[in-house]
């Protein structure tokens, strides 16, 4: 019936995917929580992170530099996007914010398609993380194991920034009540810019870390964006711990269902989301009253 080594390796796949989703969703959720803007271009940020890393890699041959390059580029892109366009939308209805970020996402995807073409690109994992590792009972690709570790470190870093720094305190206060933070004499708009940059960077970082696992195409962010939404709905909008919990749940659901029939992965994900919506409409770790 069930092939146990296969099942365990799928559990690991789910963990790797879940960790990535957790990181991307954290980015989405802190941007939404602080700025009140749902960034539909977040999937494109993920994709651009991969391509910027790929470009860095093809010039330098260093995976570490690729990760740094990809993340920094997306952070700068996020900041530019916030400065030039998003900030004009803070006082416009949610629908307009959705429309404009949706349009920007399409522009980003099409620019990459023009520049790199539609065929897929590969970024090889660093030499020391290539090959497979024996876990005693099964062999598992080393890099995928490493992804879990790398993402865990990144999430830890994000946690430290959010919960242990002055900036993080302001961001968390802003999630609760940005008007109040503004009237305390803190320049909320500067914080917004930084948060947008950090949130985008989370997606970009995930994009380049994921590039050796799944080959890069201009559309690679689209599916991720949808999965991220499910994660955020399950975990609760604006909740950092919720994004991590939701990410892990979604990752495992996708992986385990795929073992039986990949066609049902989304269906199961959707069933989980529906259950959460029915039983806990504000998400597993979300707070009431946030829309």
């Amino acid at each position: 019936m069930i092939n146990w080594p296969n099942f365990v390796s799928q559990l690991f796949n789910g963990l790797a995917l879940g960790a990535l989703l957790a990181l991307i969703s954290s980015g989405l959720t802190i941007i939404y929580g602080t700025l009140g803007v749902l960034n539909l271009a977040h999937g494109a940020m993920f994709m651009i992170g991969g391509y910027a890393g790929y470009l860095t890699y093809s010039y330098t041959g260093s995976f570490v530099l690729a990760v740094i390059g990809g993340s920094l580029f997306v952070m700068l892109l996020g900041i530019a996007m916030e400065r030039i366009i998003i900030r004009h939308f803070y006082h416009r209805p949610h629908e307009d914010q959705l429309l404009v970020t949706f349009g920007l996402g399409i522009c980003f995807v099409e620019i990459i398609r023009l520049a790199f073409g539609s065929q897929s690109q590969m970024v090889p994992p660093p030499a020391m993380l290539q090959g497979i590792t024996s876990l005693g009972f099964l062999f598992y690709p080393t890099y995928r194991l490493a992804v879990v570790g790398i993402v865990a470190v990144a999430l830890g870093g994000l946690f430290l920034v959010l919960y242990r720094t002055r900036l993080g305190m302001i961001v968390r206060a802003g999630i609760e009540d940005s008007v109040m933070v503004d009237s305390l004499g803190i320049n909320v708009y500067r914080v917004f810019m930084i948060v947008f940059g950090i949130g985008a960077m989370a997606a970009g970082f995930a994009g380049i870390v994921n590039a050796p696992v799944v080959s890069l195409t201009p559309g690679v962010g689209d599916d991720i964006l949808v999965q991220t939404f499910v994660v955020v709905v399950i975990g609760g909008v604006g909740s950092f711990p919720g994004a991590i919990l939701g990410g892990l749940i979604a990752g495992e659901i996708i992986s385990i269902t795929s073992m039986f029939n990949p066609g049902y992965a989304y269906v199961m994900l959707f069933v989980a989301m529906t259950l959460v919506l029915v039983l806990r409409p504000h998400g597993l770790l979300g707070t009431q009253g946030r829309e």
Partner: protein
Amino acid sequence: MLTKRRYLIEILTAAALIAAPFVLPLLGFAPNTVNRILVWGLFGLGFDILFGFTGLLSFGQSAFYGTGGFVAAYLLTRAGFPNVILALIIGMIAAAATGYLIGLIALRRTGIYFAMITVAIAEVFFFVEFNPLSDFTGGENGLPGVPTPSIDLGFAALHFTTGWSLYQFIAFCYFLGVVIALRIVRSPVGAIFSAIRDNPLRATAVGHNIHGYKLTAFVIAAAYAGFAGGLLGVLQAFMPPDAFMFDTSGQLVMQTAIGGRGTLFGPLVGAAVWLSLQDFLQAALGLGAAWKLVLGVVFVLLVCFLRRGIIGGLVDLYGLLTGQRTAKEPEESEPQPEIGSEIAAAPMPAPHRPDDRPSGPILQAKGLTKRYGGLLANSDIDFTVNHGELRGIIGPNGAGKSTFFKMLTCEVHPTSGSITFEGRDITGMNVTDVCQLGLTKSYQVNQLFAGLTVRENLVIAALSGLRGKFKLDLFRSIESIPGLAERVEHTLALVNLTRRTDTPVAELAYGEKRRLEIGLALATSPSLLLLDEPLAGMSPRERVETVKLLKSISQGRTMIIIDHDMDALFELAERVTVLQEGRVLVEGTPEEIKNNSTVQEAYLGGVHGVLAA
């Protein structure tokens, strides 16, 4: 704009559709392109009702487009179903039924949650179509061989095959779609749709079951999508699997925003721009794959600078050119007829039960307590108001007055205690039901339908009393509802806004907005009216007028007023309740309250002590 002249829009649409085959070829449109534009336009009619009129932005319409399309195509190709038109209708019904089920889930949340859920739904449908259901849908091959329609009239048979011949059929469907959409938009349900878009909170508070209406809009959009999906199969003689793709939903959203939301014809204009730009960029300029980038940039610029899309921009331009917008109506400061004299003469709207003039308590609250975490906002309040009474409530800031009101109208549920209204226990009911029973409130901070005119605002409030909280009179003209016009006119006269009837709310002066706020509550014809600081922020002159207004509306009505203006309140109210720190401090006639030492203490704080020292 949509209602000025009866049937004008329908006639113009018909004329344009008839003229199109003669004019459009001259502009270089191929019949196939025109047909595709019409299918998108029909798809968009439903979507515009959902997004433009009701304010629900769904990124999941491809699910219903695909469902309708594949059900119709499956019937016609695999199941040997002979009648194309009937198959299209069955597809539409299937899509509407799917829309109902999905709507039950997606509409549990609003705003961005709703958008995210619809994205996820669309993606699920795409995967289901490709995988588990590929035996029925042909998977990535789609369903080829969808036949074209023909109608047997007995004496002659009409075959719609391709090109301009098929155009006749599709154009007729589009025309029907427009006629139906216009009726819906002009119906009471359509008015409530715009109310939900502008201010869902108030739409609920004036007694409409907005969840039911949102679900209605969602199902309508799904039905349009399903029918358009079926037409797509007919048009291409092939049902393509990419109908289910997220890109389909995205393109629909973008076309609607480009053309102009809330205009019904926006999606059609958007589709025309989209498809002709696509042809132009690809063929004429040889841009190849870059066309989508250009369209993406155009879209972003339009969202940034032309909020209401191309049609909205044209309407504004027309307004500028003809100078309609510059000719402003008289401002508040201009002399106005005295309030009071004429109003006193006006007949009062019938209270809920005019036959018996009941006495005794209309509202009783017992042991009402509200706790927010550690904060006790209201504690053990006992409160009774009799029929016909005008009660005032005063208390320092933070005394829990607004929380108390919110509990009475069931916006907030008490932690403990009970509320009885006209002999019925309403504890735990919702705002909508309580408003339907005849208890409503005017808000401390204006809660108006900001995008609508004064009349439209009052119509929405009056409809709830006349139609109940939920009714699907989708095809009924709003003018044909008996008693509506009278009630609106009467309320207009009561709050002295008759001269501002067709002014958009955004152009009203503050005092006028304040009066409209009261008017919204009045138009629901409540037997008990709560007014939360009706005088807040008014100039002394406006206060005098509003006090007169309140006096006149209090005749034959029970009212409870919260305000800080004690002189006004003492003049109006028969009895006054003083709240302090969430408790009833004292209750009595204005004279008693004025001379009560505890009240003086509460308001003047330690001043007594300081003076004595």
